[in-house]
């Protein structure tokens, strides 16, 4: 009999599965029989179940959410789902919502946590997780001493995918634990971004700007190149501290960590703080006026030059070849 792998899926406010889901179900498929749990699907239950099955879930458990109690209903649902399917591992995205839920589930049920895995595999002794430590400078594998591990998986890094399954969805009965919880007083969902620019986290291409852009107005150059490449926009901490862009754009040890196919650094010196957030990119391009900038030490293609002349030429060349 194949082991059940219980996978907690994140969904977005407008009723889509999170982008982490295909990788999560792909990772779970490599370990056993992926059974998905979706909490609070509400009116989107059918669509979410179908999407989860298409991404590889052999069964989808649907639990009611509660828009007035923070986090605890999802922990209770995960506990009920685990009791039902007796999984060999519990997988969830290392997202802000799910990582807290699974940590609470783990201490509640006495399980151990391997967090922020970049890969999950199985050997003769059990399930092991790989991690990238200190911004990719070290690779570490971990396991748990016994019992089923609870593993959070970094978003957007697992390339494995599950195979589409027939939709098998069922309601999960959950007994509320009554644990003391914060009340949700209001939920505001901002409109989906109107630009088609990809999200920074999990993006396959990223163009980032640094202090070398000079001002918030001139930072638009970064966006122009990003749009020409179909890339997400990022920034160094220096650019964020200078107020060019909000903190959510920050790539680095204290921001978003990215591992794209292509990373373009414009006017970024390449402090260790920044490198720790992007040095696992497959290809790195850097443009900087300062030929001694440390970013050149890790760049596959470095240009010592002015971003305000090199980038417009690059955009023009890309547009010319696109026609």
């Amino acid at each position: 009999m194949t082991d059940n792998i219980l996978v907690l899926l994140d969904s977005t406010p407008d009723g889509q599965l999170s982008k982490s889901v295909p990788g999560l179900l792909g990772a779970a498929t490599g370990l056993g029989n992926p059974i998905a749990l979706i909490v609070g699907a509400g009116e989107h239950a059918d669509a979410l179940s179908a999407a989860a099955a298409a991404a590889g879930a052999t069964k989808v458990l649907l639990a009611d959410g509660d828009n007035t109690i923070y986090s605890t209903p999802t922990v209770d649902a995960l506990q009920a789902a685990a009791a039902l399917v007796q999984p060999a591992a519990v997988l969830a995205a290392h997202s802000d919502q799910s990582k807290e839920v699974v940590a609470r589930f783990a201490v509640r049920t006495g399980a151990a946590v391997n967090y922020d895995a970049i890969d999950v595999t199985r050997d003769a002794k059990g399930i092991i997780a790989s991690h990238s430590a200190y911004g990719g400078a070290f690779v570490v594998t971990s396991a748990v001493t016994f019992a089923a591990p609870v593993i959070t998986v970094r978003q957007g890094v697992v390339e494995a995918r599950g195979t589409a399954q027939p939709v098998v969805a069922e309601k999960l009965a959950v007994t509320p634990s009554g644990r003391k919880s914060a009340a949700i007083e209001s939920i505001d969902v901002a409109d989906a971004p109107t630009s088609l620019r990809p999200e920074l986290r999990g993006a396959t291409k990223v163009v980032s700007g640094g202090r070398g852009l000079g001002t918030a107005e001139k930072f638009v150059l970064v966006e122009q190149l990003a749009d020409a490449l179909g890339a997400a926009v990022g920034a160094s901490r220096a650019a964020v501290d200078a107020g060019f862009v909000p903190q959510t754009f920050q790539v680095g040890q204290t921001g978003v960590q990215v591992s794209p196919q292509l990373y373009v650094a414009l006017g970024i010196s390449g402090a260790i703080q920044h490198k720790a957030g992007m040095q696992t990119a497959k290809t790195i391009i850097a443009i900087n006026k300062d030929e001694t900038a440390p970013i050149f030490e890790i760049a596959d293609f470095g240009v010592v030059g002015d971003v305000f002349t090199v980038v417009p030429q690059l955009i023009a060349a890309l547009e010319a070849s696109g026609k």
Partner: protein
Amino acid sequence: MRIVVLVKEAPDTYGERFLDLETGLADRNKSDRVLDEIVERALEYAISYAEKHEGTEVVALSMATEDATASVRKALAMGADRAVLISDGALVGADVTLTAEVLAAALTHIGYDLVIAGDQSTDGAGGVVPAALSELLDIPQITKLTTIELDDKAVSGTRVIDRVTLKLRAELPAIVSVTERFPDARFPNFKGIMAAKKKPFEVLSVADLGADIDVLAKPRAIMTEISAKPPRAAGVKIVDEGDAGNQLAEFLKKNQLV
């Protein structure tokens, strides 16, 4: 009101950081060790609140080896009233659930109305200990806050995750974690540094906490292998002579990146 701030020493992110390839543990001798910066923001909030609300005690709690004393003392220099360091050889290499069990025991030992943590450290970067503590202590969690309001009875705050903004509220006692949106911390002044030397600083073992923590009784996460990635080699570097943009476009096409 007693506010306990969870403080943690971490290798300075402005320098190179190393893991010991024999033990898999952080190599303390090779990196500068500092109070993690998110922790300083948490402390800043607690200390500012205490300055405005008489009768507020701020306790800095850490779990680390004894050589973290200097970092923890910085919390006292900033203005915390006392510090508790849980230091025990049995905790070396502790995973997140063991860490949470020990901190939960320490919090119960100290007593608290509000626990404040950083949302995630710069070294482990797990961001799960506050949630685990809420479960172990059966207190509400409101985590990853961008703003916070506190009174004698309750704490509320705003949590912004991607496009969703939540307003959360919890009765005390509770645990919160703060994000980088919180103000920068103050620098300890000379008076603070001198005063810190006279403030209570307890170093306790797990046995001192009187808690029943059996490291081996529960499953634990362990490191099985570790390797250092070879440093990334630099590739081509050209000086722009008027055609660098075109050359870059060629490079991208050649490597199928456009």
